């Protein structure tokens, strides 16, 4: 049976929760929130990589989620939890329509259209009156009772969704997704509807992206079209590549590493763009397996040298 690595997840979650209680100052809490949301975005981007596609429309779905949360909270007075859920569902539904057209083409076509979709959605936000046009929406507050617990809540939701994606990846659905990436023709010949499952995978990832958007809206209280440009997708890609795309742990590690490092870098005065750009270029050119790959090759190197030492002795 599948091994879900439950102990690792539990230990990591306890650390995360403790961290949220320890770093309760507003600045460090906001870093924790950024890390959690960044990890969720990376997980979502990576989830679509399971079917072999690079989803640059992710920024659009984060935006859709954030604006849904904004509309639900400031205009429709929908409750906090329901607003978050609505965001995920809205992003997911739109992604089904978008995906069932663009995933037919797949490959570079899907990638580039996703990029264009992100830009198009930005125009939609900035031209729609009720969405506040270019100045965006303000006053997206979580309920007052959540003031002290927001960080904890964000962390729990993000970890929960990451775990959900992990479980799906390990399940037989994950097998179907990966086989589509590996060899879609063979997958087709055993009676599996490839387009259907591609859309399912995409819709799940977009659900998570939508929720991430809603969380971001509640954390920042303000959203504007500029927050949901393609850079968001590029950052998510940086987390995935730097952390290592072979496992979901890589996405989480990449998010932690880059968000924390960029805090220091920005404090030293370097531009955010240069920092992330350099991180991606370095990761792609020099560490193809990311941090996770470095760690595991270091471990195997250590065990190997030990073994050879023992042999010599």
């Amino acid at each position: 049976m599948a091994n879900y690595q439950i102990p690792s997840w539990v230990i990591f979650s306890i650390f995360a929760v403790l961290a949220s209680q320890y770093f309760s100052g507003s600045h460090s809490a906001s870093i924790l929130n950024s890390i959690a949301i960044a990890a969720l975005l990376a997980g979502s981007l990576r989830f679509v990589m399971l079917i072999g596609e690079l989803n640059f429309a992710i920024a659009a779905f984060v935006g859709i989620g954030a604006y849904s949360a904004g509309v639900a909270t400031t205009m429709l007075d929908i409750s906090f939890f329901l607003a978050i859920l609505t965001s995920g569902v809205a992003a997911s539904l739109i992604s089904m329509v978008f995906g069932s057209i663009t995933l037919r083409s797949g490959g570079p076509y899907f990638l580039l259209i996703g990029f264009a979709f992100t830009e198009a959605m930005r125009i939609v936000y900035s031209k729609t009156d009720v969405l506040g046009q270019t100045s965006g929406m303000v006053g997206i507050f979580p309920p007052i009772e959540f003031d002290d617990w927001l960080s904890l809540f964000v962390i729990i939701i993000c970890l929960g969704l990451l775990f959900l994606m992990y479980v799906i990846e390990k399940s037989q659905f994950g097998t179907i997704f990966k086989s589509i990436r590996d060899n879609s023709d063979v997958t087709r010949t055993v009676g599996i509807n490839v387009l259907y499952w591609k859309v399912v995978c995409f819709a799940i990832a977009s659900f998570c992206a939508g929720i991430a958007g809603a969380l971001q809206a509640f954390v920042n209280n303000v959203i504007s079209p500029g927050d949901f440009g393609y850079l968001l997708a590029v950052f998510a890609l940086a987390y995935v590549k730097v952390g290592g795309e072979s496992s979901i742990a890589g996405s989480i590690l990449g998010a932690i590493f880059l968000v924390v490092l960029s805090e220091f870098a920005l404090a030293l005065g370097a531009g955010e763009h240069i920092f992330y750009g350099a991180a991606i270029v370095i990761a792609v050119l020099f560490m193809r397996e990311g941090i996770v790959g470095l760690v595991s090759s270091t471990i195997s190197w250590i065990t190997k040298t030990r073994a050879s030492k023992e042999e010599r002795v």
Partner: protein
Amino acid sequence: MNSEQTPLLSGRQLERRFGGLLAVSELDIDLYPGEILGLIGPNGAGKSTTFNLLSGFYPPTGGELYVMGERCTGKSPTKISRKGLVRTFQHGSLMPSMSVRDNILLGTMHQLSGRRRIERIARTEETAEMLGLSAFLEEVAGVLPHGLQRLVSIGIAFASRPKILCLDEPLTGLNHTEASSALHVFERIRGEFGCSILLVEHNMKAVMKICDRMVVLHHGKPIAAGRAEDIQSNEEVISIYLGRLDDE
């Protein structure tokens, strides 16, 4: 033989054009229950195109296709596979980065959808056992030796327990022992599961040995059909295989 039975798979006057090129035409083909049918012919005779027509990867530009008695002309590969026709490919007919277990498991997914995972796993292991792959279930398929990879691709296809199994050059690159054990597996698939097999193969020794009947393609058209001994003594077949020069 079997002339009273209804065929599981039949093509009627199938035709496929690519631009100005007529790759397959006037193709009538029938596969009867429990039969192993060989599809042979020199390189470029249209065997691969025929396979793609029968499995739905190419919609025909003319003629009709029936699978399990139902009209399937122009249906997608997924739909045709769900009727019980499963094929393999000549090259790379597996998921290279996945374990052998997951490869074979994939084959059970649709056919056992809605059933419990335990059943799918049992089916996977039964299939692996039959193909002699039990010891390799946890290996990554793409790094196995070529011969084992061939067996894995047959395993994926057979795990869905098709009524019709279409194998595209399954013996290519196998050594003598591997080939003869693969032939044994084909016999078992037919004997124990009543599955009919359509075989494209250029290993003539094997084809002659295992096939009940064969159809010879040349320039996209069937030019002969019959039992091994008829085909082997057919002057036209010999001449297209060994070539002929117009009398000079």
